């Protein structure tokens, strides 16, 4: 589904990813773990197409198509969703307006009919209920004055509404208390499907207790240095990343 080959990415002339390769087949959840500064978030941003993230070499195919041929919003419409570590505040734009505008923009790009207002509201109401989001909150400007936990729940709500084919979760557990972590994880788990892939970027093992990965990759200094099953996450939790830092240097 998502196939990354020998990817090198620079930000502000600084090389961050140095020949990273990774395959995530449909239906699987892969975790990327690594120390701070390893390039975990850079991977998510580069895949989504953030400006100033320069692709130096390598390629990414997404469902057989060259991902880098597409603009940011075209990648979104093709089904790539990045859940932000720090979701942006959008002053003056009610969350409902933002959601509907985004959904219809994607539908338009895919040549589908736009969703009607009643259908949209019905769908949002269902999703908000499962994510314990108050409808009143959705009438407020998106993320403005929301707590860290509320912002992450909004990310999951958008994800559930947009129904992307591939999810990248960037440090989705940061800033969440135990209860919020459970709500958010349940929301993500509900989206697990045979035709959907996920890349879970995290520093800590605890998120993976809730979202169980099929594969775990250790990212250090811009490269995947080790891959394994779920047990690898537990090992990292016990021993830390120190053992890999030497290898990467």
């Amino acid at each position: 589904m998502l196939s990354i080959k020998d990817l090198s990415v620079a930000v502000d002339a600084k090389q961050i990813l140095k020949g990273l390769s990774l395959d995530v087949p449909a239906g699987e959840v892969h975790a990327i773990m690594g120390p701070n500064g390893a390039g975990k978030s850079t991977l998510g941003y580069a895949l989504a197409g953030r400006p100033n993230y320069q692709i130096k070499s390598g390629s990414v195919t997404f469902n057989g198509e060259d991902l880098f041929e597409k603009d940011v919003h075209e990648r979104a419409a093709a089904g790539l969703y990045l859940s932000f570590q720090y979701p942006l505040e959008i002053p003056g734009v009610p969350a409902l307006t933002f959601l509907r505008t985004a959904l219809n923009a994607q539908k338009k790009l895919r040549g589908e009919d736009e969703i009607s207002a009643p259908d949209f509201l019905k769908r949002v109401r269902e999703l908000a209920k499962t994510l314990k989001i108050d409808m009143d909150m959705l009438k407020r400007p998106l993320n403005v004055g929301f707590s860290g936990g509320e912002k992450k729940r909004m990310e999951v709500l958008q994800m559930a509404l947009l129904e992307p084919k591939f999810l990248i979760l960037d440090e989705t557990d940061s800033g969440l208390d135990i209860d919020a972590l459970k709500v958010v994880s349940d929301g993500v788990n509900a989206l697990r499907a045979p035709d959907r892939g996920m890349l879970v970027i995290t520093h800590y093992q605890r998120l993976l207790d809730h979202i169980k990965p099929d594969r775990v990759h250790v990212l250090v200094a811009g490269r995947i240095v080790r891959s394994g099953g779920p047990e690898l996450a537990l090992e990292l939790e016990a021993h830390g990343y120190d053992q890999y830092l030497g290898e990467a240097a």
Partner: protein
Amino acid sequence: MAAVKETIETVAGLETYEHGFVTDIEMEFAPKGLNADVVRFISAKKNEPEWMLEMRLAAYERWLTMEEPDWAKVDYQKVDYQDLYYYAAPKKKDGPKSLDEIDPELLKTYAKLGIPLREQEVLAGVVGAPRYAVDAVFDSVSVVTTFKDELKKSGVIFCAISEALREYPDLVRQYLGSVVPVSDNYFAALNAAVFSDGSFVYVPPGVRCPMELSTYFRINAENTGQFERTLIIADKGAYVSYLEGCTAPQRDENQLHAAVVELVALDDAEIKYSTVQNWYPGDAEGKGGIYNFVTKRADCRGARSKVSWTQVETGSAVTWKYPSCILRGDDSVGEFYSIAVTNGAQQADTGTKMIHLGKNTKSRIISKGISAGRSSATYRGLVSAHAKATGARNFTQCDSLLIGKTCASHTVPYIESDTAKAQFEHEATTTRLSEDQLFYAMQRGLSQEEAVALLVNGFVRDVLQKLPMEFAVEAQKLVAISLEGSVG
């Protein structure tokens, strides 16, 4: 939500300035240039009372002694006042005006601009949709005013000011120049000397005007200045909501628009005055466009009177405009809500003055400036309190949004208080349209243009909400169109 969608579609589909066409019509001009004879010519054309001519001539004499102001943060090639026509009117036969006698070219022009001049067209609209009466001013004259008779039934006078001078001379004489005296400033003096038309509104005591009133200004002729004069009086306990819109053809030379608007609100009266200003802004290099040098002032003369100015300024090459409120009556309220968008080489120096004279007077200023391209936008505002204005309160919020790296934004607030018993608050922010916000919105599926439109709409939302509903949608589109191509 529908409005946002519409904005986005508009952004994707339209030319930058859609009103730039020229109407080919036979016109009558005053001789080029300005002198006392031209002033007399205009007055005679209008069959004005003698006192009006005297007032004009006095204003002209005064103007000759004045100098063009240069304190605004705008830079433009000065106007050659002898190279302008001061009167241009579509030729017509004498006699009463009816729609059938109006040149079909003119009717076509307004149809193209989407301005309903036929009452039945407005009436044929959706049931329950708000109706509004229109005064259409083409270059120097009012060509038609709709719903005049129906308004008259409730006692409301809505007509061209030239007509008011003939039909209600005493009423006009009582108020004209009482808010903006002929000596007020260079452009106001010029306007008083040569104004040719504009709208007159009188709402009698206790009457709530049954519909929105609007004036639509169109500059068409070449080398012609437009000097309209608007006078609105809300008598005790009256209410009126008024909207003006303006467009002009796309021409290479600059054209001068120097209007004066006077509002008078007596005890317990309320006037809402909204402007959607879309004069031709010139091309991207700064060639052509309208000089919009306008004096707008409201006198909250009565106790508990209230005036709200709401403006959406997207057009003009150079704007010099400060709709103000003199809060003379005790407990009177003044409001100013502004969205000013500059793009390309546009320059705007705009803001307001809130002059607190009465006790417990309140004012509120919300200004949203958006600059893109190589443009420059300045907010200039004065809030002052007279020694007697105890309990005066003002809240001012000025937000500026910069798009790109070559535009400029300035905020110049003046605060003067002669009493310790006034409370003034001022907040100001300047932000750049954030790349991160754009990326976030695009990651959710919005194209760059859609993302800019959405973010800008969010930025101006609290001011848009102050506009009458149907114009809010219009204004939202206008803002988006004005910013087309401003990113990337």
